[in-house]
């Protein structure tokens, strides 16, 4: 279970906190909670169960600590880009990350699963225990909001 879902959970958490160290801590906390509640583990659908725990872990974290520190160690993979591009890229990424933090939780979850983790609508729906129609609507609203924040 850990091997299969650790990376997805980490990326999901990272899309919220934008800090790799913090995301790792939260991933560890998520799996610790999952392990502690293994009796309630749904073997048929482990993903929604894990995402629910991850979400609760995030909620607990947000309740305790504000504001979120944005990650300083986001690395640009393409080393050939110019300084101008790099700065633009960094700025746009920071902006996107900041805009993401402003989204409501359900929209943030949908956006991170759909566009960061690359899940299909169906997979996102099953992970978040929503209908596919709900996911489509939330995705549309989230993108519109993000566009508003970034413009």
């Amino acid at each position, binding site marked *: 279970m*850990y*091997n299969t879902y*650790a*990376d997805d959970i*980490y*990326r999901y958490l*990272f899309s919220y906190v934008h800090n*790799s160290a913090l*995301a*790792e801590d939260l*991933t*560890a906390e998520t*799996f*610790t909670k999952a*392990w502690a509640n293994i009796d309630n583990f749904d073997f048929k659908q482990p993903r929604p169960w894990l995402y629910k725990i991850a979400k609760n872990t995030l909620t607990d974290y947000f309740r305790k600590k504000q504001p979120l520190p944005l*990650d300083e160690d*986001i*690395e*640009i*993979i393409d080393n050939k880009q110019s300084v101008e591009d790099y700065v633009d890229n960094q700025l*746009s*990424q920071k902006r*996107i*990350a900041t805009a993401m933090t402003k989204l409501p939780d359900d929209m943030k979850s949908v*956006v991170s699963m*759909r*566009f*960061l983790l*690359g899940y299909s*609508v169906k997979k996102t729906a099953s992970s978040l225990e929503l209908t596919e129609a709900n996911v*489509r*609507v939330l*995705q*549309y609203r989230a*993108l*519109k909001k*993000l*566009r508003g924040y*970034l413009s």
Partner: protein
Amino acid sequence: MKQNKLANELRDVGASDNEITELEKLAHALGNSPQSRLSKSSKNAIAHQIGFKNAFVFRRPALSGAMAFVLLLLSLTVFAQTAQPGHPLHALKRGSEEIRKVVQPGFDDDDIQKIRDDEVKKSNSSDDSDDDSHNSSSDDKGRNRGSGDTEKSKDDHRESDSEDSSGSRDRTRTEEDDNDSNSGSSGSGSSGGSGSNSGSGSSGSGSSNDDDKKDDNKDVLGTNSGSGSNKSGSNSGSGSNNSGSNRDKPEDD
């Protein structure tokens, strides 16, 4: 393709074409944003932090090897339950009985003794059936059968005791027949006790006349009916009866 899918999804929820173009660009930017991935070392570190030390220590080849070994051992143990003494798997059977004795509350030495008895009975019955098939062709086998009780007693004292008692019964019968017979047949009677009476039986019939031959048949039938369960005993008894009755019957007549 993905863009088309997204466009269709957005169109389904009522987005206009202009909106769709813009939102697709935004979605593309989101997808291209650098994503932090969980490195293997971080994954290990988290696993240790959580306490899933086995998450990576629990090597799959080792696990599957261990599983295969356990399965093999289990299947061998099950197969060994039919093993007879002398079989290579019999030691495994005895080992499993010892484990059962510790694990299973109602299982004790008496049960193990019963299993041993069953094994001896099975081996005896299989030996007897083998011997029966060759009995008519070899007199030596009949002789061996008469003394076979002592050989089998190595495996099981109880079984040999019961056979010995039947052997002694035959011996008693032989002695009674010997008392009826003359001194010439007493030698055959004594050898009947050891189960090697086939020779004496033949000598008895060889020395008899036609009437004696008829009596032979009667006596053989009589000894067969009275021979009981122990074949070795009955053979020895019939041998002595031949010698005894060959002489007794004409006198009775």
